[in-house]
Protein backbone atom coordinates (compact mmCIF):
# COMPACT_ATOMS: atom_id res chain seq x y z
CA UNK A 1 0.00 0.00 0.00
CA UNK A 2 2.77 2.34 1.05
CA UNK A 3 4.69 1.50 -2.12
CA UNK A 4 1.59 2.21 -4.22
CA UNK A 5 1.17 5.68 -2.68
CA UNK A 6 4.83 6.45 -3.39
CA UNK A 7 4.38 5.36 -7.03
CA UNK A 8 1.26 7.52 -7.53
CA UNK A 9 2.95 10.53 -5.88
CA UNK A 10 5.98 10.07 -8.14
CA UNK A 11 3.78 9.86 -11.24
CA UNK A 12 1.87 13.05 -10.27
CA UNK A 13 5.17 14.85 -9.63
CA UNK A 14 6.40 13.85 -13.08
CA UNK A 15 3.10 14.96 -14.72
CA UNK A 16 3.14 18.34 -12.95
CA UNK A 17 6.80 18.79 -13.84
CA UNK A 18 6.18 18.00 -17.51
CA UNK A 19 3.15 20.29 -17.58
CA UNK A 20 5.00 23.25 -16.01
CA UNK A 21 7.93 22.69 -18.33
CA UNK A 22 5.65 22.63 -21.37
CA UNK A 23 3.94 25.86 -20.25
CA UNK A 24 7.27 27.56 -19.73
CA UNK A 25 8.29 26.60 -23.26
CA UNK A 26 5.06 27.90 -24.73
CA UNK A 27 5.24 31.31 -23.08
CA UNK A 28 2.37 31.41 -20.61
CA UNK A 29 1.02 34.91 -21.30
CA UNK A 30 0.82 36.91 -24.54
CA UNK A 31 -0.40 40.38 -25.26
CA UNK A 32 -2.05 41.44 -28.52
CA UNK A 33 -2.63 44.96 -29.80
CA UNK A 34 -4.58 45.59 -32.96
CA UNK A 35 -6.26 48.08 -35.26
CA UNK A 36 -9.92 47.40 -36.04
CA UNK A 37 -12.07 48.41 -39.02
CA UNK A 38 -15.72 47.74 -38.31
CA UNK A 39 -18.61 47.38 -40.76
CA UNK A 40 -22.19 47.58 -39.45
CA UNK A 41 -24.57 44.92 -40.78
CA UNK A 42 -28.30 44.19 -40.49
CA UNK A 43 -30.57 46.84 -39.01
CA UNK A 44 -27.57 48.70 -37.58
CA UNK A 45 -26.47 49.30 -41.17
CA UNK A 46 -29.84 49.71 -42.86
CA UNK A 47 -31.54 51.86 -40.21
CA UNK A 48 -28.82 53.71 -38.35
CA UNK A 49 -25.21 53.86 -39.54
CA UNK A 50 -24.13 52.46 -42.89
CA UNK A 51 -20.62 53.93 -42.81
CA UNK A 52 -17.77 51.62 -41.88
CA UNK A 53 -15.76 52.80 -38.89
CA UNK A 54 -11.98 53.17 -39.27
CA UNK A 55 -11.74 54.41 -35.68
CA UNK A 56 -11.15 51.26 -33.65
CA UNK A 57 -8.46 49.69 -31.51
CA UNK A 58 -8.24 46.68 -29.26
CA UNK A 59 -6.01 44.73 -26.95
CA UNK A 60 -5.96 41.26 -25.43
CA UNK A 61 -4.13 39.33 -22.73
CA UNK A 62 -4.10 35.60 -23.54
CA UNK A 63 -2.96 32.77 -21.31
CA UNK A 64 -1.77 29.70 -23.23
CA UNK A 65 -3.61 26.73 -21.75
CA UNK A 66 -1.77 24.46 -24.18
CA UNK A 67 0.05 24.79 -27.48
CA UNK A 68 -3.31 24.98 -29.24
CA UNK A 69 -5.65 26.66 -26.79
CA UNK A 70 -5.51 30.13 -25.30
CA UNK A 71 -7.87 31.84 -22.89
CA UNK A 72 -7.93 35.50 -21.93
CA UNK A 73 -9.46 38.91 -21.82
CA UNK A 74 -10.18 41.17 -24.80
CA UNK A 75 -10.96 44.90 -24.52
CA UNK A 76 -11.59 47.18 -27.48
CA UNK A 77 -13.11 50.44 -28.55
CA UNK A 78 -14.87 51.60 -31.73
CA UNK A 79 -16.51 54.87 -32.80
CA UNK A 80 -19.33 54.81 -35.37
CA UNK A 81 -20.64 58.02 -36.91
CA UNK A 82 -22.98 59.10 -39.65
CA UNK A 83 -24.49 62.45 -40.52
CA UNK A 84 -27.53 62.55 -42.80
CA UNK A 85 -28.51 65.57 -44.92
CA UNK A 86 -31.47 67.64 -43.81
CA UNK A 87 -34.76 65.84 -44.27
CA UNK A 88 -38.31 66.04 -42.96
CA UNK A 89 -39.36 63.25 -40.62
CA UNK A 90 -42.93 62.55 -39.54
CA UNK A 91 -42.84 61.84 -35.82
CA UNK A 92 -46.56 61.50 -35.52
CA UNK A 93 -49.50 61.66 -37.89
CA UNK A 94 -49.64 65.43 -37.45
CA UNK A 95 -46.11 66.32 -36.37
CA UNK A 96 -43.16 66.85 -38.70
CA UNK A 97 -39.60 67.75 -37.89
CA UNK A 98 -36.96 68.96 -40.29
CA UNK A 99 -33.44 68.22 -39.09
CA UNK A 100 -29.93 67.17 -39.94
CA UNK A 101 -29.74 63.84 -38.13
CA UNK A 102 -26.42 62.57 -36.78
CA UNK A 103 -26.07 59.10 -35.29
CA UNK A 104 -23.06 58.41 -33.07
CA UNK A 105 -22.27 55.12 -31.34
CA UNK A 106 -19.30 54.27 -29.14
CA UNK A 107 -18.72 50.62 -28.42
CA UNK A 108 -16.35 49.28 -25.73
CA UNK A 109 -16.51 45.49 -25.45
CA UNK A 110 -14.98 43.60 -22.51
CA UNK A 111 -14.89 39.93 -23.48
CA UNK A 112 -13.66 36.58 -22.23
CA UNK A 113 -11.99 35.09 -25.29
CA UNK A 114 -10.68 31.69 -26.30
CA UNK A 115 -8.40 31.06 -29.26
CA UNK A 116 -7.73 27.72 -30.96
CA UNK A 117 -4.67 27.35 -33.19
CA UNK A 118 -4.84 23.94 -34.92
CA UNK A 119 -1.16 23.96 -35.81
CA UNK A 120 -0.25 24.72 -32.19
CA UNK A 121 1.84 27.80 -32.98
CA UNK A 122 4.45 25.55 -34.59
CA UNK A 123 7.43 27.79 -35.29
CA UNK A 124 8.26 25.83 -38.43
CA UNK A 125 5.02 27.02 -39.99
CA UNK A 126 5.10 30.63 -41.12
CA UNK A 127 1.32 30.99 -41.54
CA UNK A 128 -0.60 29.80 -38.51
CA UNK A 129 -4.40 29.85 -38.76
CA UNK A 130 -6.58 30.37 -35.71
CA UNK A 131 -10.24 30.58 -34.80
CA UNK A 132 -11.66 32.40 -31.80
CA UNK A 133 -14.83 32.80 -29.79
CA UNK A 134 -15.65 35.38 -27.17
CA UNK A 135 -18.53 36.60 -25.05
CA UNK A 136 -19.08 39.35 -22.52
CA UNK A 137 -20.41 42.84 -22.17
CA UNK A 138 -20.31 45.78 -24.51
CA UNK A 139 -20.44 49.23 -22.91
CA UNK A 140 -22.46 51.10 -25.53
CA UNK A 141 -23.17 54.80 -25.82
CA UNK A 142 -25.77 55.58 -28.45
CA UNK A 143 -26.47 59.23 -29.27
CA UNK A 144 -28.83 60.63 -31.86
CA UNK A 145 -28.62 64.31 -32.69
CA UNK A 146 -31.49 66.21 -34.29
CA UNK A 147 -29.60 69.33 -35.26
CA UNK A 148 -27.64 70.23 -32.15
CA UNK A 149 -30.08 68.55 -29.79
CA UNK A 150 -29.17 65.05 -28.73
CA UNK A 151 -30.68 62.18 -26.86
CA UNK A 152 -28.24 59.67 -25.48
CA UNK A 153 -28.44 56.18 -24.06
CA UNK A 154 -25.57 54.44 -22.25
CA UNK A 155 -25.91 50.78 -21.35
CA UNK A 156 -24.05 47.49 -20.96
CA UNK A 157 -25.21 44.91 -23.54
CA UNK A 158 -24.50 41.24 -24.09
CA UNK A 159 -22.03 40.57 -26.87
CA UNK A 160 -20.82 37.38 -28.56
CA UNK A 161 -18.07 37.12 -31.11
CA UNK A 162 -16.70 34.51 -33.51
CA UNK A 163 -13.49 35.06 -35.44
CA UNK A 164 -10.85 33.57 -37.67
CA UNK A 165 -7.49 34.64 -39.01
CA UNK A 166 -3.84 33.86 -39.46
CA UNK A 167 -0.76 34.88 -37.56
CA UNK A 168 2.70 35.17 -39.05
CA UNK A 169 5.70 34.99 -36.69
CA UNK A 170 8.33 37.74 -37.03
CA UNK A 171 10.91 34.98 -37.62
CA UNK A 172 11.30 31.24 -37.17
CA UNK A 173 12.66 31.72 -33.66
CA UNK A 174 10.26 34.43 -32.60
CA UNK A 175 7.36 34.05 -30.20
CA UNK A 176 5.97 37.35 -31.48
CA UNK A 177 3.79 37.52 -34.56
CA UNK A 178 1.72 39.73 -36.83
CA UNK A 179 -1.87 38.72 -37.21
CA UNK A 180 -4.79 39.56 -39.48
CA UNK A 181 -8.31 38.34 -38.96
CA UNK A 182 -12.01 39.00 -39.08
CA UNK A 183 -14.73 38.74 -36.48
CA UNK A 184 -18.50 38.55 -36.55
CA UNK A 185 -19.98 40.43 -33.62
CA UNK A 186 -23.45 40.04 -32.20
CA UNK A 187 -24.40 42.91 -29.87
CA UNK A 188 -27.89 42.82 -28.44
CA UNK A 189 -29.80 46.11 -28.50
CA UNK A 190 -33.51 46.77 -28.53
CA UNK A 191 -34.37 50.42 -28.60
CA UNK A 192 -35.64 53.02 -31.06
CA UNK A 193 -36.60 50.28 -33.54
CA UNK A 194 -33.10 48.80 -33.64
CA UNK A 195 -32.71 45.04 -33.15
CA UNK A 196 -28.97 44.83 -32.65
CA UNK A 197 -25.65 46.52 -33.29
CA UNK A 198 -24.12 43.62 -35.24
CA UNK A 199 -20.88 44.14 -37.13
CA UNK A 200 -18.18 42.40 -39.13
CA UNK A 201 -14.72 43.62 -38.16
CA UNK A 202 -11.35 43.37 -39.87
CA UNK A 203 -8.34 43.37 -37.56
CA UNK A 204 -4.57 43.61 -37.95
CA UNK A 205 -2.04 43.72 -35.14
CA UNK A 206 0.76 42.08 -33.23
CA UNK A 207 0.98 39.48 -30.47
CA UNK A 208 4.02 39.17 -28.24
CA UNK A 209 4.93 37.30 -25.04
CA UNK A 210 5.02 39.15 -21.72
Amino acid at each position, binding site marked *: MKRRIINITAMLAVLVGVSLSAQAQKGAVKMGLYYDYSMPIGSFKSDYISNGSPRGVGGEIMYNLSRQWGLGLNVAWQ*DYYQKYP*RAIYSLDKNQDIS*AVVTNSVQSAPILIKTVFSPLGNDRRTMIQPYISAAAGLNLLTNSQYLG*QFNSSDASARFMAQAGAGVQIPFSKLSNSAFFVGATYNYISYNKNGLNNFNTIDLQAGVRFP*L
Partner: protein
Amino acid sequence: MRKSMILPGLAALIMLIAASCTKDPLKDMTAEDSRIYITNYDSTANFGSYKTFSIADSVAVIDNGRATKEISVTDQAYLDAVKKYMQQQGYVLVNKSQSPDLGLNVNRIYRTSTGVVSYPDYWGYYGGYWDPYYWGYPGYGYYVPYSYAVYSVTEGAISVDMLDLKSAKTTNKISIIWTGTIRGSGILNASVADSQVKALFDQSPYIKAN
Protein backbone atom coordinates in the same frame (compact mmCIF):
# COMPACT_ATOMS: atom_id res chain seq x y z
CA MET B 1 6.30 46.65 -15.62
CA ARG B 2 4.57 44.36 -13.16
CA LYS B 3 2.10 41.97 -14.81
CA SER B 4 -0.69 43.18 -12.50
CA MET B 5 -0.32 46.63 -14.09
CA ILE B 6 -0.59 45.38 -17.66
CA LEU B 7 -4.36 45.12 -17.86
CA PRO B 8 -5.13 48.56 -16.38
CA GLY B 9 -2.37 49.96 -18.57
CA LEU B 10 -3.89 48.37 -21.67
CA ALA B 11 -7.34 49.69 -20.79
CA ALA B 12 -5.91 53.18 -20.16
CA LEU B 13 -4.10 53.13 -23.51
CA ILE B 14 -7.28 52.16 -25.35
CA MET B 15 -9.29 54.84 -23.52
CA LEU B 16 -6.65 57.44 -24.43
CA ILE B 17 -6.85 56.50 -28.11
CA ALA B 18 -10.65 56.44 -27.85
CA ALA B 19 -10.82 59.97 -26.43
CA SER B 20 -8.61 61.34 -29.18
CA CYS B 21 -10.37 59.55 -32.06
CA THR B 22 -14.06 59.99 -31.23
CA LYS B 23 -15.84 62.12 -33.80
CA ASP B 24 -17.79 64.90 -32.09
CA PRO B 25 -21.07 65.64 -33.95
CA LEU B 26 -21.20 69.21 -32.59
CA LYS B 27 -17.82 70.02 -34.14
CA ASP B 28 -19.04 68.74 -37.50
CA MET B 29 -22.03 71.08 -37.65
CA THR B 30 -22.75 74.50 -39.14
CA ALA B 31 -25.27 76.90 -37.58
CA GLU B 32 -27.71 75.92 -40.34
CA ASP B 33 -27.20 72.21 -39.56
CA SER B 34 -27.83 72.86 -35.88
CA ARG B 35 -31.39 74.08 -36.44
CA ILE B 36 -34.54 72.06 -36.24
CA TYR B 37 -38.03 72.96 -37.39
CA ILE B 38 -40.99 71.33 -35.69
CA THR B 39 -44.58 71.71 -36.89
CA ASN B 40 -47.80 70.37 -35.40
CA TYR B 41 -51.21 70.74 -36.97
CA ASP B 42 -54.78 69.89 -36.19
CA SER B 43 -55.69 67.11 -38.60
CA THR B 44 -59.37 68.06 -38.37
CA ALA B 45 -58.74 71.61 -39.57
CA ASN B 46 -59.49 72.48 -43.18
CA PHE B 47 -56.81 75.03 -43.97
CA GLY B 48 -58.37 75.74 -47.35
CA SER B 49 -61.53 77.06 -45.73
CA TYR B 50 -59.83 80.12 -44.25
CA LYS B 51 -59.42 83.23 -46.38
CA THR B 52 -58.06 86.05 -44.23
CA PHE B 53 -55.54 86.42 -41.46
CA SER B 54 -54.14 89.00 -39.11
CA ILE B 55 -50.89 88.94 -37.18
CA ALA B 56 -50.09 90.38 -33.75
CA ASP B 57 -48.07 93.60 -33.93
CA SER B 58 -45.51 92.47 -31.35
CA VAL B 59 -43.83 89.29 -30.12
CA ALA B 60 -44.44 87.59 -26.77
CA VAL B 61 -41.12 87.14 -24.99
CA ILE B 62 -41.41 84.28 -22.53
CA ASP B 63 -38.48 84.32 -20.14
CA ASN B 64 -38.22 82.68 -16.74
CA GLY B 65 -41.95 82.18 -16.60
CA ARG B 66 -42.70 85.85 -17.33
CA ALA B 67 -44.07 87.19 -20.59
CA THR B 68 -43.67 90.63 -22.06
CA LYS B 69 -44.49 92.03 -25.48
CA GLU B 70 -41.58 93.39 -27.47
CA ILE B 71 -40.80 94.46 -31.02
CA SER B 72 -37.11 94.43 -31.85
CA VAL B 73 -35.64 94.49 -35.35
CA THR B 74 -35.44 90.69 -35.25
CA ASP B 75 -39.03 90.42 -34.03
CA GLN B 76 -40.22 92.64 -36.86
CA ALA B 77 -38.29 90.52 -39.36
CA TYR B 78 -40.07 87.38 -38.12
CA LEU B 79 -43.48 89.08 -38.25
CA ASP B 80 -42.78 90.29 -41.79
CA ALA B 81 -41.69 86.81 -42.88
CA VAL B 82 -44.84 85.20 -41.47
CA LYS B 83 -46.96 87.77 -43.33
CA LYS B 84 -45.04 87.13 -46.55
CA TYR B 85 -45.40 83.34 -46.50
CA MET B 86 -49.06 83.44 -45.43
CA GLN B 87 -49.78 85.73 -48.39
CA GLN B 88 -47.79 83.47 -50.71
CA GLN B 89 -50.09 80.63 -49.65
CA GLY B 90 -53.12 82.66 -50.76
CA TYR B 91 -54.33 84.18 -47.49
CA VAL B 92 -55.31 87.85 -47.38
CA LEU B 93 -53.84 90.06 -44.67
CA VAL B 94 -56.51 92.15 -42.91
CA ASN B 95 -56.65 94.30 -39.82
CA LYS B 96 -57.68 92.44 -36.69
CA SER B 97 -60.78 94.67 -36.48
CA GLN B 98 -61.97 93.13 -39.78
CA SER B 99 -62.75 89.72 -38.21
CA PRO B 100 -59.90 87.69 -39.71
CA ASP B 101 -60.38 83.94 -40.10
CA LEU B 102 -56.92 83.23 -38.69
CA GLY B 103 -54.77 84.94 -36.05
CA LEU B 104 -51.00 84.49 -35.91
CA ASN B 105 -48.84 84.97 -32.85
CA VAL B 106 -45.04 84.89 -32.75
CA ASN B 107 -43.20 84.06 -29.53
CA ARG B 108 -39.61 84.13 -28.32
CA ILE B 109 -39.02 81.53 -25.66
CA TYR B 110 -36.00 81.60 -23.37
CA ARG B 111 -34.61 79.35 -20.70
CA THR B 112 -36.71 79.19 -17.58
CA SER B 113 -35.55 79.03 -13.97
CA THR B 114 -35.98 75.24 -14.13
CA GLY B 115 -34.05 75.06 -17.40
CA VAL B 116 -36.95 73.69 -19.37
CA VAL B 117 -40.07 75.09 -21.00
CA SER B 118 -42.44 72.20 -21.40
CA TYR B 119 -45.10 72.69 -23.99
CA PRO B 120 -48.09 71.67 -21.87
CA ASP B 121 -47.04 74.52 -19.53
CA TYR B 122 -46.50 76.82 -22.49
CA TRP B 123 -49.97 76.19 -23.79
CA GLY B 124 -51.42 76.18 -20.28
CA TYR B 125 -50.24 79.76 -19.83
CA TYR B 126 -51.03 80.79 -23.39
CA GLY B 127 -53.89 83.03 -22.30
CA GLY B 128 -51.38 84.84 -20.09
CA TYR B 129 -49.10 85.53 -23.03
CA TRP B 130 -51.86 86.25 -25.48
CA ASP B 131 -55.03 87.38 -23.77
CA PRO B 132 -57.94 86.29 -26.02
CA TYR B 133 -59.14 89.89 -25.57
CA TYR B 134 -56.39 90.87 -28.01
CA TRP B 135 -58.18 88.95 -30.74
CA GLY B 136 -61.57 90.32 -29.76
CA TYR B 137 -62.72 87.28 -27.77
CA PRO B 138 -62.53 88.25 -24.07
CA GLY B 139 -63.24 85.41 -21.67
CA TYR B 140 -62.58 82.68 -24.22
CA GLY B 141 -60.02 79.95 -23.57
CA TYR B 142 -57.43 78.52 -25.89
CA TYR B 143 -57.67 74.94 -27.04
CA VAL B 144 -54.77 72.75 -28.14
CA PRO B 145 -55.56 69.32 -29.65
CA TYR B 146 -54.30 66.48 -27.44
CA SER B 147 -52.69 64.89 -30.44
CA TYR B 148 -49.97 67.55 -30.55
CA ALA B 149 -46.69 65.96 -29.60
CA VAL B 150 -45.13 67.10 -26.35
CA TYR B 151 -41.60 68.39 -26.30
CA SER B 152 -39.47 70.59 -24.10
CA VAL B 153 -37.32 73.59 -24.88
CA THR B 154 -34.13 73.95 -22.90
CA GLU B 155 -32.85 77.05 -24.62
CA GLY B 156 -33.96 79.77 -27.01
CA ALA B 157 -36.71 79.03 -29.47
CA ILE B 158 -39.08 80.91 -31.69
CA SER B 159 -42.59 79.67 -32.16
CA VAL B 160 -45.39 80.74 -34.47
CA ASP B 161 -48.95 79.78 -33.57
CA MET B 162 -51.96 79.85 -35.89
CA LEU B 163 -55.33 80.43 -34.23
CA ASP B 164 -58.74 79.57 -35.62
CA LEU B 165 -60.73 82.78 -35.08
CA LYS B 166 -63.36 81.87 -37.67
CA SER B 167 -64.80 79.08 -35.50
CA ALA B 168 -64.30 80.85 -32.17
CA LYS B 169 -67.79 82.34 -32.11
CA THR B 170 -69.48 78.96 -32.53
CA THR B 171 -67.14 76.89 -30.34
CA ASN B 172 -66.51 79.51 -27.63
CA LYS B 173 -62.82 78.72 -27.71
CA ILE B 174 -59.83 79.70 -29.80
CA SER B 175 -58.28 76.56 -31.24
CA ILE B 176 -54.57 76.50 -32.04
CA ILE B 177 -54.64 74.70 -35.38
CA TRP B 178 -50.94 74.91 -36.25
CA THR B 179 -47.68 75.60 -34.45
CA GLY B 180 -44.22 75.96 -35.85
CA THR B 181 -41.12 75.96 -33.64
CA ILE B 182 -37.58 76.90 -34.62
CA ARG B 183 -34.63 75.91 -32.45
CA GLY B 184 -30.87 76.02 -32.90
CA SER B 185 -27.91 78.36 -33.26
CA GLY B 186 -28.20 81.92 -34.56
CA ILE B 187 -31.97 82.05 -34.96
CA LEU B 188 -32.38 85.34 -33.05
CA ASN B 189 -31.03 87.31 -35.96
CA ALA B 190 -33.05 89.45 -38.38
CA SER B 191 -30.98 88.32 -41.38
CA VAL B 192 -32.07 84.68 -41.02
CA ALA B 193 -35.72 85.27 -40.07
CA ASP B 194 -37.06 84.85 -43.62
CA SER B 195 -35.33 81.52 -44.24
CA GLN B 196 -36.42 80.17 -40.86
CA VAL B 197 -40.09 80.96 -41.42
CA LYS B 198 -39.84 79.66 -45.00
CA ALA B 199 -38.62 76.31 -43.61
CA LEU B 200 -41.74 76.06 -41.42
CA PHE B 201 -44.06 76.75 -44.35
CA ASP B 202 -42.11 74.46 -46.71
CA GLN B 203 -42.79 71.49 -44.46
CA SER B 204 -46.46 72.44 -44.06
CA PRO B 205 -47.85 72.25 -47.62
CA TYR B 206 -51.38 71.80 -46.27
CA ILE B 207 -51.40 75.53 -45.28
CA LYS B 208 -52.99 76.83 -48.46
CA ALA B 209 -56.08 78.93 -49.11
CA ASN B 210 -58.47 77.59 -51.74
